[in-house]
């Protein structure tokens, strides 16, 4: 330790610490502008943090100068004060100080310091730099005349999202911050620069002139878009959410957000919000009262229940809704309606994860935490376009690779934004994941790189696995996957030896007819190398929706009650019967995909809470046919979705910003959201509707507040046993959290798998159900893009997101485009055996030749018109990632 004094206060700090760090440690305040605690390297440019060091005639910047033994630092001298004031004077000499209309007024670091140091009329007069304001992108407004060139924005853009969209241009007094060639900003628009800016130079166009910090009420919440579950505050003025502010030091997002989090919240107050219950009459919706609408729903359900039995009614819970609401939904279906026909869109994303990991390990969730990723030595990303689908998790990957020297392996057919950082990038043919990973395991075993102790002590079934992967030689695997042997060998060696190694995967693995097997194969690979049960390792399925993890956890699944307790287990069923005071059905219910197929046949009524199968499910033509043939369809949502349009009754609900509750993010962290604004019109929260409806159905449900629902969840769900609103008021808790004193679980399977021993499953590669042929020569794969979310009901109603990404497109490799005579931007027809859509071609090399990609968010050219409804036999997840298609000029 180094001992020094700052303003005569003794302090000891680690060698290499800066004077600024030492000052913080002993509570001495040193002002700064260019220093930013999220950044590793100091900049030393603003010179506000200058201090006097005894024996040195100059002043030293506290942010860049390391401490030395016996150093005597003086921060409060006249000399220091004058120098700082002078710097402020210089900064203001060239600053557009129209604080009156500045977005940062009251929250501006320059303004605060200028006041503190009493900088009045600047002595430097005359014309100022006049670069003006740039507004030529949908999200950010850059006011160059308020820029103090501290470089925070430049540095965060480079270091945090690894985008480097802006830099200092020119030099000296002429310096300004700008994109290359002074063009309009074209980046991922995460807003990191805006959060870093100490002045009013970078503002949100979405929130501009709608309220400044002092006028705003901050309400802590959780971002409603993806499964990252970023913590942020909704900033409210006059009953409207006008801005958001990411939470600093959050273990999830540490002050960062992506474009959807930063700018996508304006859907909350969109004019399309549903404000009154609607009943369809003669093909037209008419407004109705809650009493009438819910009365009608209750009556219809009762009639159908009586006529064709409870199992002719089904329900789709929602990965968008809170844990409390999903819990009530499944309770309503099971206890009030009397069926286990309850499922939600996890079926379409990670059902195979839940099933596969439950078999391999005993529980199906991310084994490790988001923050652990940054410390992994090797990261294998497969079937996940992390920078677009989980941007905040991608930040951890960038941090691991760029700051901590981790090695990145990517196994994905498409080129991703972090491909340039990959040590090994394997671009295998879609649908050949199992062959590829069997190939990796073959190499690992052949070269003796497996973790023998781990296999012996913690697993079973190894010999069977070994037998199967025996024939997956690199040559054989190259033939199937198209990945060069050297890459397979390199990836295998790296993953097996450079530990801890963490696997991140997503729908590229799960959305296959072999999804469950794909997941088990990944589990095999991790167990084989002992990359489980320790920090920064693991098998990490990145969950898609904000609360898909929670919806699964609280039992919105047809075969399990809350906490993955099996319906088929008599004792468990008895427990729930006792808890809920009602006899419960014994048979497993139908999955989403099965319910859609049964709709109009054995299934007569469907209750859809916040889901949109008319865009999210495969083979939409078929889906529509089925939904239209239902006797009764109820949809409750915040917008009139494609599915709601087919409904008999539509119920308007509160958005995430209008209610209290919890979401569980992808790393099993249960987090609290708070009501920030009132719902529009007569919209009610889902949980209130569910209580009302259940009571009308004859099963009384009554809660004063969602916290009571969580208490009930905790009482019946061992993994949530210790969770309460009170405990998570400051920071979420990660399940398993079995009791009130349990601190939550950072990573799973530490000394023992949930199922005891980890189980190896020997799995053979199997071809996808539909493979290209002469008629349909291309492989179509589908997925998400950065700027939209799921079926777009929210993101496409966000002004900025829709502006930046307004149209559907199909990505096609230049090789194929040339063959087909198609140029970039041209309209094309894409067809499969199930349908045809028209959209623009995006000619680029993100897909390999022979593969095309279509994002599924766009109703005007719905990718799921083309996809195949072939199902995984175990998890019933559809094959979204591979079907045969063709492209023609439109």
């Amino acid at each position, binding site marked *: 330790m180094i001992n020094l004094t700052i303003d005569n206060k003794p302090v000891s700090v680690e060698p290499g610490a800066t004077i600024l760090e030492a000052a913080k440690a002993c509570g001495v305040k040193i002002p700064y502008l260019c220093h930013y605690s999220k950044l590793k390297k100091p900049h030393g440019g603003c010179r506000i943090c200058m201090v006097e060091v005894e024996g040195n005639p*100059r002043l030293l910047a506290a942010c860049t100068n390391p401490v030395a033994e016996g150093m005597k630092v003086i921060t409060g001298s006249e*000399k220091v004060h004058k*120098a700082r004031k002078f710097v402020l004077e210089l900064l203001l000499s060239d600053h557009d100080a129209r604080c009156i209309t500045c977005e940062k007024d009251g929250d501006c670091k320059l303004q605060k310091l200028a006041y503190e140091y009493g900088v009045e009329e600047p002595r430097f007069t005359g014309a100022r730099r006049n670069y003006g304001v740039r507004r030529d992108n949908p999200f950010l407004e850059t006011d160059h005349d308020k820029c103090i060139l501290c470089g925070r924005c430049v540095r965060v853009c480079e270091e945090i999202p690894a985008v480097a969209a802006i830099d200092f241009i020119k030099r000296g007094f002429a310096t300004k911050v700008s994109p290359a060639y002074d063009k309009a900003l074209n980046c991922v628009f995460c807003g990191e620069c805006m959060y870093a800016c100490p002045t009013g130079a970078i503002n949100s166009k979405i929130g501009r002139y709608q309220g400044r910090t002092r006028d705003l009420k901050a309400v802590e919440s959780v971002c409603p878009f993806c499964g990252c579950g970023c913590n942020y505050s909704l900033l409210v003025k006059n009953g409207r959410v006008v801005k958001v502010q990411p939470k600093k030091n959050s273990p999830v997002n540490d002050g960062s957000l992506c474009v959807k989090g930063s700018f996508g919240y304006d859907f909350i107050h969109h004019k399309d919000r549903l404000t009154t219950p609607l009943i369809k009459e003669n093909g037209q919706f008419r407004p109705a009262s809650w009493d009438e609408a819910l009365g009608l729903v209750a009556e219809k359900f009762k009639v159908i229940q009586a006529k064709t039995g409870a199992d002719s009614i089904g329900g789709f819970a929602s990965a968008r809704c809170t844990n409390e609401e999903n819990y009530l939904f499944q309770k309503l279906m099971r206890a009030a309606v009397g069926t286990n026909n309850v499922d939600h869109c996890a079926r379409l994303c990670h059902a195979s994860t839940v099933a596969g990991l439950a078999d391999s390990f005993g529980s199906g969730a991310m084994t490790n935490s988001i923050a652990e990723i940054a410390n992994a030595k090797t990261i294998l990303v497969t079937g996940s376009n992390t920078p677009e689908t989980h941007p905040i998790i991608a930040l951890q990957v960038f941090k691991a690779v760029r700051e901590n020297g981790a090695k990145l392996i990517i196994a994905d057919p498409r080129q991703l934004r972090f491909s340039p950082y990959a040590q090994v990038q394997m671009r295998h043919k879609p649908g050949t994941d199992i062959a590829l990973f069997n190939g990796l395991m073959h190499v690992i075993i052949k070269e003796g790189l497996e973790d023998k102790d781990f296999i012996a002590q913690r697993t079973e079934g190894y010999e069977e696995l070994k037998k199967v992967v025996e024939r997956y030689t690199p040559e054989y695997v190259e033939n199937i996957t198209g990945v060069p042997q050297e890459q397979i060998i390199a990836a295998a060696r790296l993953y097996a030896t450079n530990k801890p190694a963490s696997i991140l995967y997503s729908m590229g693995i799960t959305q296959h007819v072999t999804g469950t097997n794909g997941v088990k194969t990944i589990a095999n690979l991790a167990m084989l190398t002992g990359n489980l049960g320790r920090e920064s390792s693991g098998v990490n399925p990145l969950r898609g929706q904000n609360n898909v993890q929670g919806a699964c956890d609280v039992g919105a699944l047809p075969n399990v009650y809350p906490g993955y307790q099996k319906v088929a287990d008599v004792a468990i069923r008895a427990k729930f019967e006792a808890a809920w005071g009602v006899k419960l059905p014994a048979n497993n219910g139908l999955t989403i995909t099965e319910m859609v197929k049964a709709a109009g046949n054995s299934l007569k009524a469907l209750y859809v809470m916040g889901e949109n199968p008319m865009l999210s499910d495969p083979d939409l033509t078929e889906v529509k046919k089925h939904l239209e043939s239902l006797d009764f369809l109820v949809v409750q949502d915040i917008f009139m979705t494609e599915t709601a349009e087919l409904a008999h009754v539509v119920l308007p609900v509160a958005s995430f910003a209008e209610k209290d509750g919890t979401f569980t993010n992808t790393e099993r962290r249960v987090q609290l959201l708070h009501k920030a604004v009132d719902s529009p019109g007569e919209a009610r929260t889902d949980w209130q509707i569910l209580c009302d409806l259940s009571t009308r159905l004859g099963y009384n449900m009554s809660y004063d507040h969602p916290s009571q629902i969580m208490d009930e969840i905790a009482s019946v769900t061992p993994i949530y046993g210790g969770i309460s609103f009170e405990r998570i008021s400051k920071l979420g808790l990660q399940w398993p959290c079995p009791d009130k004193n349990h601190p939550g679980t950072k990573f799973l399977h530490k000394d023992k798998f949930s199922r005891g021993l980890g189980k190896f499953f020997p799995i053979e590669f199997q071809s996808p159900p539909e493979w290209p042929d002469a008629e349909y020569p291309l492989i179509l794969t589908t997925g998400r893009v950065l700027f939209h979310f799921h079926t777009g009901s929210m993101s496409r109603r966000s002004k900025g997101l829709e502006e930046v990404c307004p149209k559907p497109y199909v990505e096609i490799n230049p090789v194929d485009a040339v063959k087909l005579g198609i140029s970039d931007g041209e309209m094309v027809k894409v067809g499969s055996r199930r349908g045809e859509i028209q959209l623009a071609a995006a000619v680029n090399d993100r897909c390999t030749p022979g593969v095309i990609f279509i994002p599924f968010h766009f109703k005007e050219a719905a990718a799921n018109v083309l996809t195949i409804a072939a199902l995984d036999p175990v998890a019933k997840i559809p094959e979204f990632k591979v079907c045969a298609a063709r492209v023609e000029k439109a």
Partner: protein
Amino acid sequence: MPQTRVLLKNIGTPDSETLDGYLKNGGYQALKKAVSDLTPEEIVDSVKRSGLRGRGGAGFPAGMKWQFCASDQACPKYVICNADEGEPGTFKDRILLEEDPHAVLEGMALAGYAIGANQGYVYIRGEYYKGALSLEKAVTEANQHHYLGQKIYGTDFDFNIQVFRGAGAYICGEETALLDSLEGKAGRSRIKPPYPVNQGLWGKPTCVNNVETLTNIPWVVNKGVDWYRKFGTEESPGTKIYSLSGHVNHPGNYELPMGATLRELIYEYGGGIRQGRRLKAVMPGGASSACLTEKSLDVKMDFHSLAAAGSMLGSGAVIVMDENTCMVGAAHNVAAFFEHESCGRCTPCREGTHWIKRILERVKNFEAKSVAEIDLIADLGQNMRLGAFCPLGMGAPSAALSIIQHFRDEFETHVKEKRCPVNIPAVVPGL
């Protein structure tokens, strides 16, 4: 009186820029001696004992720099010849680079041998096309004849040199900015510590020496420390090339022992002031140095003496101004230079150089409202010296401050009487 031509000895000899010419002048003998008979430690020791101080401006003892670098265990190490001669008024390195490039290369190879580096770079400013060509040719020739490259003089010592052209940025003469530039970035000074001797080019120990400094090395190695120290003063040994420019009869490079006086340089070697005018001011160490007046002409031109006189030796660029020079104009010109060359990283330099220039512009154009504006320059200058990030910003106000100090009345006349007290006749005929 003849100059003491050591470093300039080869300049003007036939084909001095070629390998043949250099060999005829005894070239590469120091390298031969070093790699055959001397240990790296012995060379570092000689350079230390020679007292050779950096000729780029800062005057840091070269031997100490080498020792720091040699004792760092990390590898590879690099030798960099700083040929980014950008200090206004300086043109000594250009002559060496153009006409005696092998001497520079030999100096670098000796440095490489001494510190344990096998790769050298010459960072030559972009404006020096001819120098770069000359160096390129010299490197090729030296490689062909094994004075550079693998197994030099049959020993295990390998040393390669690459010529790297800058692209027009004065700041790159500062060694850490130079390193950033070489690494493919905008040349902005780095935070120190770490110092280049430990973490320089690509984070490796790096020895950055000025062209003239390096051309001293073969002499130190060949002739020995005692011979070398016969020139110059105890505290500034050796000779120095002074670049004399401005209103003198014979501008040019003059090599004299350190400690020759300013008067000797200007009047004996430079032939005095043109048209028999009187000397008004002289900047003895380039545009970053404080100006001196007639009173100081007997100052010795070495590190210590010039510092004691309130200025500095800097790069040895002596810029002479006669009695017809408007000092406001001169101060403004230097201020404009620094504004143009500020990298923009730190507030004091970026804004300070701008405001000094702007205020001087107002004074020059008789637009200044009061003499308070002149005081503001002093305030700016003091704060820049106190708080700028790098030597550029600290040195930028020196000229303006010293000119104001010596010629304040001229500034006041500009402000109060809206006229220039000096009537400058055109010195360029035929316009």
